[in-house]
């Protein structure tokens, strides 16, 4: 199939960027979106141009590295699918496709389509863990966990930290990501002792990183490749309320 691409090119963090057009003639329907970009890059290198930089690693939809806004939608048009799992058969011959980086103040562009998502790591550092130094653990069966809780914790823990939620959010908010972690840890008995300090610390780090506030529009959940639901934000809010009242 033939495609017209318009891709955000920006040579470095401080450089000015712009949308640049490319045409590809012979794209296989079976190629993944990133393989289509590989083909473009092979051509650009052969022509002596700088290939398009983009983040990727597992190409299986689990590492959370890939991060393209395709026609205005983080991870593109297919629901519950990361960019690397999106295949060209979802597009039509002759389509023109816009490809842009995640846009958020907290995710500055490094080059082309590559952004800096280290703010997510800083949120986790501020409390997104259970303090369990190696060697201190009781037997795994010491505390049973009701299956529903374990399943709900798992569903929240499925977040891959890709940042599509932030990219989709009109407020550049990281609440879905943060809510997923708060919900995961808060749903396990092991997570209870630090529940209050965790949420206060993470929210402070979130705001400090320059993410915006949530207005419950739901764009994040609609973009999330792992189908993390808005309920994790409700959980986050409730945990926060309790912790903040207690802290006051």
């Amino acid at each position, binding site marked *: 199939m033939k495609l017209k691409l*318009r891709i*955000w090119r*920006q040579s470095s*963090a*401080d*450089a000015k*960027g*712009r*949308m*640049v*057009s490319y045409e590809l003639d012979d794209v296989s329907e079976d190629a993944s979106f990133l393989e289509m970009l590989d083909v473009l890059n092979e051509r650009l290198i052969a022509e002596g141009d700088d290939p398009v930089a983009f983040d990727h690693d597992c190409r299986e939809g689990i590492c959370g590295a890939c991060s393209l*806004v395709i*026609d*205005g*939608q983080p991870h593109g048009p297919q629901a519950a699918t990361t960019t690397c799992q999106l295949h060209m058969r979802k597009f039509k011959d002759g389509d023109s496709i*816009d490809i*842009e980086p995640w*846009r958020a*103040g*907290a995710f*500055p562009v490094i080059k082309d389509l590559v952004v800096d998502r280290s703010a997510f790591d800083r949120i986790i550092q501020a409390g997104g863990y259970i303090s369990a130094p190696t060697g201190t653990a009781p037997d795994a069966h010491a505390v049973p966990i009701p299956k529903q809780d374990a399943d709900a914790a798992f569903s929240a823990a499925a977040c891959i930290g890709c940042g599509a939620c932030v990219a*989709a*959010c*009109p*407020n*550049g*908010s990281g*609440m879905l990501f943060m809510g997923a972690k708060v*919900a995961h840890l808060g749903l396990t008995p092991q997570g209870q002792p630090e529940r209050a300090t965790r949420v*206060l610390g993470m*929210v*402070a780090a*979130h*705001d400090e990183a*320059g*993410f*915006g*506030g*949530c*207005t*419950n*529009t*739901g*764009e994040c*959940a*609609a973009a999330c490749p792992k189908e993390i*639901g*808005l*309920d994790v*934000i*409700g*959980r*986050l*809010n*409730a945990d*926060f*309320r309790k*912790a*903040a009242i207690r802290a*006051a």
Partner: protein
Amino acid sequence: MSTDLQSRTAARPAKRAPKPTGPWRSNIGLKIAMAVSGVLLVLFIIVHMAGNLHVFEGREEMNAYAHGLRTLGEPLLPHETVLWVLRVGLIVLAAVHIWSAVVLTRRSLAARPVRYHSRKPAKGESRHAVATMRWGAAVLVLFVAWHLLDLTFRTVNPVKDVPDAYGAVVATFSPERWPVTVFYLLALVALGFHLRHGVWSAVQTIAGPDTKWRKRTQAVALAVALVVVVGFAIVPLSVTFGLVK
């Protein structure tokens, strides 16, 4: 061919949003403040709307109701005390609500300094909120200002006689002043959208995960919005169309 986007992404957001200090100044803290004040305002709005319906009982009843508001608590308390307590409460609520909305909105704008080149249709569960909450709020601010000048202080109302609430309503929505009615209705549309999202959003903000009852809460929010809009709209419409004179 290439199109320039005006912007480049700085390493840090260009406009630093106001620094939050302490949990209640955080994005979630302010949102809770906005939700709690919002919910109280909703209660006020519903009571206010119910009060307005006294118009249909005629001038006597309506003015008696308005008088009742002023003499609430008498003779235990001096004239208009309760009313002023309520008014101050309302002012505080509105101040908290608007202040938190402004701070959060500024932070949100700073958090998304660069727009996408290609715009997508919104997909979110409450996608209309993106389009309606903020402009709706602006309409509401203008409306509240007009509304106070019109029916509270009577600055722009032909009927200056304060105890004659009925007269003021009939005068302001009289058929020849139809633009006032139109503006009132426009504000109601904004309020309706504001509540349709706001009431559900406030529940999500205050009450916690709502997986099980989200659909129901959203339905309740829609119902509240419809009741409020219809309940308020029927008064000026009745006057403008001559059903109440």
